[in-house]
């Protein structure tokens, strides 16, 4: 009979904060970079030139249809074979960014698509600079539309970052695997690591719901349409 014993994981507790930080850092870095990729990607997708539109569309479709694990392997093993040796952490960041960037492109594009051309023209005719147009007219409206899918995407990145453990990044999943294979306490380790992911994902989720509530209570009838 299996004796459930959570204290068996005690001797591995020292490494846990570092593992959590690794997961958080990896995810944060990938989210930040993927926003940049998404901005560039959505510009490509809405460009006047068909070549750029095609490039943007191809990037989104390819990366959305290939498993993240394969992207990680391609970056980690593939680049090593053609002479570029990079660490597991860097390749995980690159792969996660490429993957999330494709989704981010679509999220941002969807947000921008909802803003009519007339608004740009109206704002410009008020002598707003392009920066002002984006700061005061475009961004507040786009944010309302994309905050929810953006939150989901952030959860996706945190969960996807678990795959980094396969290329040797010592994150929460890797910690679980170490505890499990050393002490054979897989179930306890699973529960520990699982609840950490649960807290992280639900934290983002609650933040997203909170943002929605805030936006709803602070919106005037004009912005609510």
């Amino acid at each position, binding site marked *: 009979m299996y004796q*459930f014993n959570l204290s068996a994981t005690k001797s591995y507790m020292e490494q846990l904060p570092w593992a959590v930080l690794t997961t958080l850092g990896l995810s944060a870095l990938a989210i930040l970079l993927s926003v940049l990729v998404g901005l560039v990607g959505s510009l490509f997708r809405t460009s006047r030139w068909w070549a750029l539109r095609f490039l943007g569309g191809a990037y989104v479709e390819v990366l*959305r249809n290939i498993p993240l694990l*394969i992207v990680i*392997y391609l970056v980690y*093993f593939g680049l090593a074979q053609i002479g570029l040796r990079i660490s597991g952490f860097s390749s995980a960041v690159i792969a996660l960014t490429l993957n999330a960037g494709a989704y981010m492109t679509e999220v941002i594009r969807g947000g921008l698509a909802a803003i009519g051309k007339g608004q740009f023209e109206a704002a410009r005719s008020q002598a707003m600079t392009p920066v002002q147009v984006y700061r005061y007219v475009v961004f507040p409206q786009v944010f309302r539309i994309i905050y929810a899918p953006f939150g989901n995407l952030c959860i996706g990145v945190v969960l996807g970052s678990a795959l980094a453990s*396969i290329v040797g990044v010592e994150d929460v999943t890797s910690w679980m695997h170490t505890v499990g294979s050393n002490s054979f306490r897989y179930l306890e380790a699973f529960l520990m690591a699982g609840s950490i992911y649960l807290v992280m994902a639900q934290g983002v989720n609650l933040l997203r719901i909170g943002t929605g509530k805030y936006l709803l209570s602070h919106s005037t009838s004009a912005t609510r349409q």
Partner: protein
Amino acid sequence: MQFDDDVTHYWRFFLSGTLTTLWISWLALMLGGILGTVVAHMRMSRIAALRIFALGYTEFFRSIPPLMLFFGSYYGISFALDVNLNPFTSATLALTFTASSLMAEVVRSGIESVGTGQWLAATASAMTRLQVFRYVVWPQALRVCLPPATGVYISTLKDSSVASVIGYIELTRSGLLIRETTGSSFDVFLIIATIYFVINYGLSLCGGALERRFRIVH
């Protein structure tokens, strides 16, 4: 990029890996569809405890990385229950749970798309709750559910690549084995990536076609 002769010699393994991937994802989608339908009905139940359980269920599997589920079902269950789960069973279990939480949301939105007026009309026609579902709600919900269900299949197919880490020989694992034999990583993973892309892109096109075909014009 010059393709290594060696790699293409292994086309049989690529093929069998592809078929295995398609099969296990399909199996998980079907089992997940059944489980997801049950969870979706719990989510809309009149009993609060069932609703809370269903919400917890979908949120739990939405918040746990698939990789952890594979580890959990392969090692965790084996040690805890002292049973020997083979990689196939564990992978199917993990994929089924992930798929079921996605399918629960798909089924729920499908059922909610059927207007309340139809419920009232069916109940007024002296139909029992089961009859309302069987003859009024489910047939209409199905056409709303099918297009997003292809999305769940794509997502399950992608998740199934993670089954390679517990030693289940599907497409990704086949690729890793071929890589170990031939030593060429880039070619192998490029082929694997292309296969996944072709399958999933084809499926997403099918999903788009289904969506146009089944669109309900109001």
